[in-house]
Structure formats: C-alpha cells, structure tokens
C-alpha cells in the first residue's frame, strides 16, 4: 500500500479530532436538551417553541446550503417549505385521510415535486446569473402564493387546510405517565419530528463535508477558477439547489404535521417564512449549518417572549406612548435588527466565532 497523500492524512486526522473536541460535546449537549424538553418544560408553549426552533433550524440549514455553501440567494425557499406542508396537508386532509401511509407518501411526494421544480428553476436561472435568480425566485414565490390563494377549489384558498394526525401521533392518543409527564400523541409527534430533523441535519452535514460539498465551496469562492479546473459548475449548483430545496420541502411536511394547519400566509408567505429564514441565517452565520440552530433559537425565542417584553417596556416607561406604538410593531424592530446585523455583524454568531477561533490558533 502506498503512503497516504497529504490530503488523506489531513482527512483522517480531521475525522479523529471531530469526536473529541469541545464543540462535539456541545452538540451532544444540545441534542440532549432537545430530547429532554417535554420533560423539563412540559407546558405547551415551551414544547411548541422547541419544536419550532428545531424545524426552523433544519429549514435554515437547508437554506444555508444554497446561500452559504453554493453562494446563491433564493427567495423561493419559503415556497418549497410550503410545497412540503401542502403535500402532507393534501394527502392527510383534503384529498385523503389520516394514516401512516399517507403521511409517508405526503413527504415523499413533496420531495419529488420539490426536486422537479428546483431542477426547473436551476436550469432557468443559472443561465442568467445570480441577481436575476434572486428576482425570479421572488417572482415565482409570490406567484405561488397568489395561486394558492386564488385557486380555492384546489388548495382551500385563504382558509387553508386542517389535518389531524393518525394513530400514535393523534391528539387523543396517550401512553400514560412517565417521569411525571403525560405522554400524548403530541409527545410522540415531537420525537418523530426531532428524529427526522436530526436525520435531515446530519444528511446536510454529510453533504457539505463530502467531496461534492468541497467542490461547491470552490465554486462559491471563485466560479471561474472552478470552471477552469474542469468542474461543470452548472451541474454542481443544480444538485446543491435541488438538495437544499428537497430538504426544505420535507421540513415543510414535518411542520404541517406539528402545526396541523396550512394556509398560504403562514406556510408560503414571503414576509412570514422567508423573512424569518433570512434573519436567522444572518444572525446565525452563513456557510455554517450550525448557525441555523443559533439563529432559529434566537429569533423564535424572541418572537415568543416579545409580548412579555412589551409588557415589561410598558411598566418601565408608562408615559412613552410612541414607544408603545413602536413596540407593537415588532416587525419594525425585526427590520431594524436585521439591518444592524447585516451592517455590523455580517458573519453572524457562528461566523464570528469561527473567525475568532482561527485567529487564536494562528
């Protein structure tokens, strides 16, 4: 056997180190935290918050595959999320009935549809360079919302579709008490989604660390050079886009399972889903899948406790009417926060940490 190449040595060292560094324990700890949430904080609000964080972290990670790793901004990610949600909703609600099989099919169909649309969009847009891609995805996303709202017969229109989960996952199911907490269908659903999201997240990690992922980073950093090296950048970018969109669609399906209700505004909306995702990916850090977890955590926690923040502000400054108005418009605050983060903190939390670690090791 020949002596290993420098790259191989580097890779095997990297692999070994992965399991003993501090950050590994941090990740394990985080996972453990999520696993224990139904027992530590059993209230509906907390479990719901944790679930939303998990779902959005996965969604943001899938968005980061496009933005941070392939260097492509797409405003259509919310649409893919919505496609997944609607797929599940169709099969479980409008056009089918709650059953395990339909659940699985809903997700699978979502993935298939998403991949076709993603491939179509990549073909269309990669021909014409990045800014046009952003605008086109925005246009198509808005179109999707309009269609979903207008074609009431097909999609349930603005009222949306409600679904209920089958068997073990249904609201009425109960397994009795365990460690002082009632195990209901909700709890089981929680763990199903946690498991699925972890699996999706690991898949995405694997994707970015694979040779394919490295080529993508090369393309992101310098497309011309990658082309010169012989890589058909278009094919790699299409694969990445499709992968990311499919992940988003599956996440959407999972979201529908948890929330039990889909409609154009909450599932497809640009101002709702897309804005949250953008804010989370900027705060968390682009090009670092884990950034999604931080971003999702920060944004969702803030959103959930904002009413309490408002009350706090009211009691501290009872006279400032104008300020009350401003606090009511929490979207305004988010917008300002977004701008500030983009200007002063463009690398996000994870990005800054990585920079800091890199500087320390020099």
């Amino acid at each position, binding site marked *: 056997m020949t002596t290993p190449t420098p790259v191989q040595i580097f890779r095997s060292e990297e692999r070994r180190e992965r399991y003993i560094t501090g950050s590994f324990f941090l990740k394990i700890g985080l996972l453990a935290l999520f696993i224990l949430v139904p027992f530590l904080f059993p209230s509906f609000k907390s479990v719901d918050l944790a679930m939303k964080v998990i779902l959005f972290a996965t969604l943001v990670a899938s968005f980061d595959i496009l933005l941070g790793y392939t*260097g492509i*901004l797409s405003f259509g990610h919310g649409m893919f999320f919505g496609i997944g949600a609607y797929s599940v909703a169709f099969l479980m609600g409008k056009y089918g009935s709650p059953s395990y099989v339909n659940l699985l099919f809903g997700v699978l169909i979502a993935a298939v549809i998403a991949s076709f649309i993603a491939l179509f969009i990549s073909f*269309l*847009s990669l*021909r*014409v*360079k*990045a*800014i*046009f891609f*952003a*605008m*086109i995805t*925005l*246009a*198509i996303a*808005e*179109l999707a919302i*309009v*269609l979903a709202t*207008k*074609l009431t017969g097909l999609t349930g229109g603005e009222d949306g579709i409600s679904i209920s989960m089958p068997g073990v996952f249904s609201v009425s199911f109960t397994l009795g008490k365990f460690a002082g907490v009632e195990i209901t269908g909700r709890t089981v659903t929680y763990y199903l989604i946690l498991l699925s999201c972890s699996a999706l997240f690991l898949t995405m990690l694997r994707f970015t660390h694979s040779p394919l992922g490295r080529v993508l980073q090369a393309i*992101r950093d*310098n*497309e*011309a050079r990658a082309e010169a090296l012989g890589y058909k950048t278009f094919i790699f970018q299409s694969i990445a886009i499709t992968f990311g969109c499919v992940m988003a669609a599956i996440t959407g399906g999972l979201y529908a399972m948890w929330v039990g209700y889909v409609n154009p505004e909450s599932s497809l909306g640009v*101002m709702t889903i897309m*804005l949250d995702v*953008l804010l989370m990916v*900027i705060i968390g850090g682009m090009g670092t899948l884990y950034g999604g977890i931080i971003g999702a955590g920060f944004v969702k926690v803030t959103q959930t406790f904002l009413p309490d923040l408002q009350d706090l502000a009211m009691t501290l400054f009872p006279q400032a009417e104008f300020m009350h*108005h*401003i606090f009511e*418009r929490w*979207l*305004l605050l*988010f*917008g*300002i926060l*977004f*701008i500030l983060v*983009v*200007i002063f903190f*463009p690398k996000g939390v994870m990005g800054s940490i990585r920079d800091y670690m890199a500087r320390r090791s020099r």
Partner: protein
Amino acid sequence: MEMNNDKAAMALKPAGHWERRLPLAIGMGLFLLPLLGIPVKTYLTLTIAGLAMGMLLFLVASGVSIIFGLMDVINFAHGALFTWGAYVGFSIFRLLNKWVDAESVLQNVGAFTIAVVAAMVVVAFLGVVLERVIVRRVYGSHLFQILITFGSTIVLVELIRVLWGPNDEVMPVPLRFQGNWDVMDVIVLRYPIVCILMGLAVYALIQLVLKRTKLGTIVRAGVEDLDMVQAMGHNIFLLLTGVFAVGAALAALGGLAMAMFTLQVYPDMGSTYLLFAFIVVIIGGLGSVTGSLVGALIVGLAYNYVAYLIPWAAAGVNILIMIVILLIRPTGLFPVGK
C-alpha cells in the same frame, strides 16, 4: 461570490437585424393580437388602461434601472419608497380636501401639484438617508444589497403602519381628474390619460437631461465606467446620492399616481408593484431608460389584455414574458453595452 460579474456578462453583441427588430415585433404583436378576441371599444379602453398602468410602472422602473446601471446597486427598497409617495400624497389631499373636492380646475391642479412636490421631496430625502446611511456600506456585494434593502423595506413599511395605521384607506382624487370624456361614442376615462401624458413628459424630461446636459452626459458615462469618471475629477459620491434621490422621487410620483389610479392606499402596495418593476427592468434592460419605458408598456398592456381574456392568468403572464426574455435575450430588449 461571483454576483459582480453580471455587468461584464451583459456586454453588447453587435446588434443584428433580428435583434433590432425584436422590440418592434413584440410591440406590434402585443398591440394587434388581442384585437382578435376583444371587441374594438373594449380594446380601446383596455389599451388606455394598459398604457396608463405602463406609464406608472415606468416611473418606478426607471429609477431601479438607472440606479442599477450607474451604481451597480440592487434596490429592493424601491417599493417602500413608492408606497411612501402614495401616503404623503394621501395626507396632502386630506389636508387640502377643500381644494380636492372643488369644481375649480385651478384648485384641483394646485392640490395635485402640491401633493406631487411634497411626495417627491419627502421621498427624495428618504432616498438620500437610505443611500448614505445604509446602501453605501454594501457597495460591491449584490447579496448584501438585496438583504439590506429588503430589511429597509420592512422598516419603512412598518413606519407607515405606525404613522398612518395599518388599514387600507380610500385615496381622494381631485374632482377634475375623475370622470370621463365622451369621444365619438367611446368612454375615455380622464385619469388614465393624465397618467399617460405625465409618463411621456417624465420620459422626455429624463431623456433631455441625459442627452443634453453635462450632468446627464456624466451619468451616461458613469453607467459605462464609474471608476473612469471619478479618475477624471468628478465627485461621484454626490452623483450617486443625487441619482438615488431622483430615482426615489420618481418612485414616489409613481406611487402617488398609482394610488389615484386604483383609488386606494395600503401599506403593502409597494411589494406588488416592485415585482412588476423588476419584471419591467429585466424585459427592458438594466440601465436603459428607453428600455424601462418599452418594458413597462409591454407589462401594462399584457396585464390588462390578459386580465380581460383569462382573469386568473393575469398575474402570471408577465412572469411568463420575463422568463421568455431571460431565455432568449437575457440582457433585455435595450441592453446598455459596456
């Protein structure tokens, strides 16, 4: 991230026979085809409505086009500036409601003029603040420009909700601008004609400035090579702020006019029209004012014809046109060569 090679990629190929005829072909097709399926009187009404809508879109789109052509900046906040223009005009009309409801042409036009001036000045000011405080920090990165102007849109729109309330409002329109003329048995609405004339006037004014004044020449030079213009001794920072402000003012005018056209103002009106504006700019060609005009007219006409023929497809037809243009001629109908 190679977003910044876009302008190099838009280098002009020598315009062949086929390429020069394309805008004309589309224009004629658009004008004449619908005659097949629509009675003549309705056709005229739709055409006027389409041209009017097109003119208003032109006002918004021309700003986006020049700002991108000159500054290489994608401005997603244009829609919010558009909305601000409408709301400022709304407040002025409310304030001057006596003039608005009066029979006198003088008072009507007076109210309109004051509203226009106020809207344009306020929004130009917003534009200057936006450019200097926010956009200037992200020159060079299209991605961050999109993100930051997107965020600015949210802030601006929410401010509207704070200042004016979140509800839809009915837009007052001066009396003399309403109603119609009876021309040879065809009912011709007054206001769309006003819009068309206004749009043509603005286009003529812009072309005059660009082609006949030194400032305009410098702007056209800057669209080709901004560094060189700076190396020749011109303060491009003033120039860029100025152009941004003008673009913003045009958007404000478009917003005010559009509110009077649709008779309503609501905080989110910007996003729909911003999308249209981007479609117009892609069809017409980034950096070209004439392209914006032609593209806008195409979009306006297409929307109105299709809305009559196949209502639910109206929203989609322009996206379709945009996709077709992107496939066969990505630089747009009137590309600005480098």
